[in-house]
């Protein structure tokens, strides 16, 4: 058993499952938005009406969290594949984590218009 503390969950199967589940959420969200743009008249009113509904805000937040988790698992894999020295690898991982954290919080602020 190889030990690792910087991946999302402590177990490989957890990371794998999260990667798959979040991929489904992101695919659903993308398809929904594409469908909305194709089948309805997109202007400020319809767009604001869509985002004023609680269920859609929750759906969007779920998609945002999914991007965060999905990107963390993926980028963690890329950094452990290609950056062999510990210091730069940890720095890149920390930067990725910080970026995702900022995006999620910023997204919440935008969604609920705080």
């Amino acid at each position: 058993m190889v030990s690792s503390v910087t991946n999302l969950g402590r177990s490989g199967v957890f990371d794998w499952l999260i990667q798959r589940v979040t991929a489904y959420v992101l695919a659903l969200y993308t398809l929904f938005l594409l469908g909305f743009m194709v089948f309805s008249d997109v202007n400020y009113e319809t767009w604001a009406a869509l985002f004023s509904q609680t269920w859609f805000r929750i759906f969007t937040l779920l998609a945002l969290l999914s991007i965060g988790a999905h990107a963390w698992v993926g980028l963690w894999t890329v950094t452990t594949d290609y950056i062999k020295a510990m210091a730069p690898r940890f720095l890149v991982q920390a930067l990725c984590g910080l970026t995702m954290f900022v995006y999620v919080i910023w997204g919440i602020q935008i969604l609920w218009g705080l």
Partner: protein
Amino acid sequence: MLVSLYRYNPESDNAPYMQDVEVDIPEGKDLMVLDVLNLIKERDPSMAYRRSCREGVCGSDGMNMNGTNGLACITPMSQVVKNNKLVLRPLPGLPVIRDLVVDMSLFYKQYEKVMPYLVNDTPAPAIERLQTPEDREKLDGLYECILCACCSTACPSFWWNPDKFIGPSGLLQAYRFLADSRDTAQAERLANLDDPFSVFRCRGIMNCVSVCPKGLNPTKAIGHIRNLLLQRAT
């Protein structure tokens, strides 16, 4: 025919280099790559490579022939030679000891990790541990692996993390024992594999399947292991 050989002798060479050799191939014969190497060695005994059974059973002469890993002894010239040229290199990703001979220590270390033997602490029966024909069938496509390392050294995940990712060959063996009805250590075996590297570095690109000289399918075995881990964890 022109054969381009990877040459490296750490005692006399500063760096590896490619040596071009012209080889006369007997008319009307489809020689195996190993036969060509033997012809070369007759002229230049300093050429180093491993071989033993010369019939695809021992797994000694795994090498990279015109860019594809395989066993030299069972790969006919007609299958690999392009434009009357053959390029022979050692298996990629492992340290080269000399010419086409690689250091397989890391490969064996990963093999060792999966406990490649039956674990059964129950009292041994008088004659042998029996298995139904159906249970025995589950081991088909798994037990045939000869550990030639063609698959693991064709796998980019194994190139990047040979110390952490078990690799297709080791994982095929891991499943061979996970699937064995006589083994009682399944829980322990699975616990040893549930980290982000050992199994999950497999990205399913199936290089292992396309190069396996025995026609085995490590990607499928890895999928089975993933399912077992998932069943255990959910």
